[in-house]
């Protein structure tokens, strides 16, 4: 953490755990009798509860989106660039809610939690989840917080899928949908990358068919490899070239030298993989990537996205990034075209960035201007209500 908390930071934040005892029937047909969600909130809910924003996290995200948990923290929350006083999601104007989704591994009920029936961790027996299950649990969270209607539901990547599902499932509970670097469904290539990642985890001997907790092992290698594969798809070729090129971390190509050669990019990927393996749960990773693969916005609407979006009544902002090849701008344009054909209010910005899919998490002047302009309009609506 910086020595002095910057003025535009939400500062020190404390997560809250919220217990739900009303059974939740999931898309798979199974029921969670009770569950917990860990959340963080920033800013103040106004008297009419009309200034609330829900932030939906992506594959490896969690509830800690902004600020610091303690003065010892090195890094702030994952979207601290965009949430805080005077930032696009301005905590002087809005009450910002972020949660760790069900099935996560940062405090919400998930594969690491104890299954009350067996007294053992759920592990691989945790029910498979769909994006709609998250939306359902988020709606119950909104009830608990006294929020009848979100001023906006916001998310990037897998988070954007939750936003779109919100717009269709609860049209009366969302005024604005901000869908960033997302897609109405994954491509075959996307699913293929996810399957390689899952395969890396499952092939780790320490995975033990998902029962690693009981066996006191952790599939660190597999999870690390899964992250390395994923990480490549989050970056652009251009960025990797700029950042690492063919620079060597150790060794030399000089004749007569027999030392092992390691490229900078190799070392970087290993670092990313190791760091992730220490903080993330393998069963959660499998669950989240499956939810991502299975998501198909228009499946139940006869595969017609226009018919799907006719159910929405909120306004939309759609944002894409030029070098994002995991959720390419073309995917965002498909969303926009379906919204236009469904006669919905939508604005679309195609941001130039060399940062690939990860651009949605990182600072970018134009991206911030677009988000700020849109959110300021929403803030003005909230005030005039």
């Amino acid at each position, binding site marked *: 953490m910086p020595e002095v908390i910057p003025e535009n930071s939400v500062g020190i934040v404390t997560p809250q755990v919220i217990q739900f005892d009303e059974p939740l029937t999931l898309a798979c047909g199974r029921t969670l009798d009770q569950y917990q969600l860990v959340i963080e909130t920033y800013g103040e809910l106004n008297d009419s509860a009309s200034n609330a924003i829900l932030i939906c996290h992506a594959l490896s995200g969690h509830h800690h989106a902004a600020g610091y948990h303690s003065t010892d923290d090195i890094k702030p929350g994952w979207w601290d660039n965009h949430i805080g006083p005077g930032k696009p999601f301005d905590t002087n104007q809005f009450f910002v809610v972020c949660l760790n989704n069900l099935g996560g591994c940062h405090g919400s009920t998930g594969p690491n939690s104890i299954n009350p029936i067996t007294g053992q961790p759920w592990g691989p027996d945790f029910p498979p989840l769909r994006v709609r299950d998250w939306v359902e649990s988020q709606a119950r969270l909104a009830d608990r917080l006294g929020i009848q209607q979100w001023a906006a539901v916001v998310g990037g990547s897998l988070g954007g899928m939750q936003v779109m599902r919100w717009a269709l499932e609860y049209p009366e509970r969302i005024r604005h949908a901000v869908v960033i670097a997302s897609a109405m469904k994954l491509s075959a290539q996307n699913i293929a990358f996810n399957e390689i990642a899952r395969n890396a985890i499952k092939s780790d001997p320490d995975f033990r068919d998902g029962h690693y907790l009981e066996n006191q092992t952790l599939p660190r290698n597999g999870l690390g490899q899964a992250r390395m594969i994923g990480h490549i798809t989050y970056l652009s070729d251009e960025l990797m070239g700029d950042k690492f090129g063919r620079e060597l971390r150790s060794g030399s190509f000089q004749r007569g030298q027999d030392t092992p050669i390691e490229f900078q990019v190799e070392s970087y990927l290993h670092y990313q993989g190791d760091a992730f393996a220490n903080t993330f749960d393998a069963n959660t990773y499998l669950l989240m990537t499956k939810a991502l693969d299975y998501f198909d916005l228009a499946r139940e609407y006869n595969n017609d996205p226009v018919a799907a979006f006719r159910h929405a009544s909120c306004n939309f902002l759609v944002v894409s990034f030029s070098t994002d090849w995991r959720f390419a701008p073309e995917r965002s*344009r498909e969303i926009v075209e379906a919204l236009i054909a469904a006669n919905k209010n939508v*604005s679309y*910005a*195609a941001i130039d960035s060399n940062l690939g899919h990860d651009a949605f998490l990182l600072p970018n002047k134009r991206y911030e*201007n677009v988000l700020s302009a849109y959110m300021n309009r929403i803030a003005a609506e909230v005030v005039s209500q």
Partner: protein
Amino acid sequence: MTIRIDLDIIQQWIKPCSRVLDLGCGDGALLKLLKQQKQVEGYGLEIDPDKITACIANGVNVLETDLDQGLTQFADKSFDTVVMTQALQAMRYPHLVLDEMLRVGQECVVTFPNFGNWRARFYLLTHGRMPVTKQLTYQWYDTPNIHFCTVNDFEALCTEKHIRVLHREFVASHQPDQQIKGIWPNLFSETAIYHLSK
């Protein structure tokens, strides 16, 4: 937000509660006006990042789009009116853009600076150089306006393409041009405003 005179003229031709597509919508001034005064629903297409942000700030639907790529994302006759103000001359293929506008819209409205205006002619005659005027401040080498035309040129294109002219209006900012622009628009109007259908 400045409301140009041509926007006032255009809005007479837009039906209340209709669906409008505004090509090269700038900061969204026209769509904002139409939304307030005629409850029009619509989208603006724009490519300039700052103008896109301005549209969003104005509460106007804006879609980042390169108009030279065509309007393939829009179905035939999916809008009541397609508008393009002061941008036709900046298109790479203005005649194809016009075709696209008439495909997507039931009607369309086009405004453009009249290069046949006597001030432009006089500038060229006396200076022997490409006209630089109050409205058209660019030099020939840095102008985004790559396809200038005159009122007569545009009329000829409409005839050639069998485009029906529903209304035509001409704007001049000076006296006595304002009095006589109706008699000889190709010489005295600065801006031409056409309401078209196919």
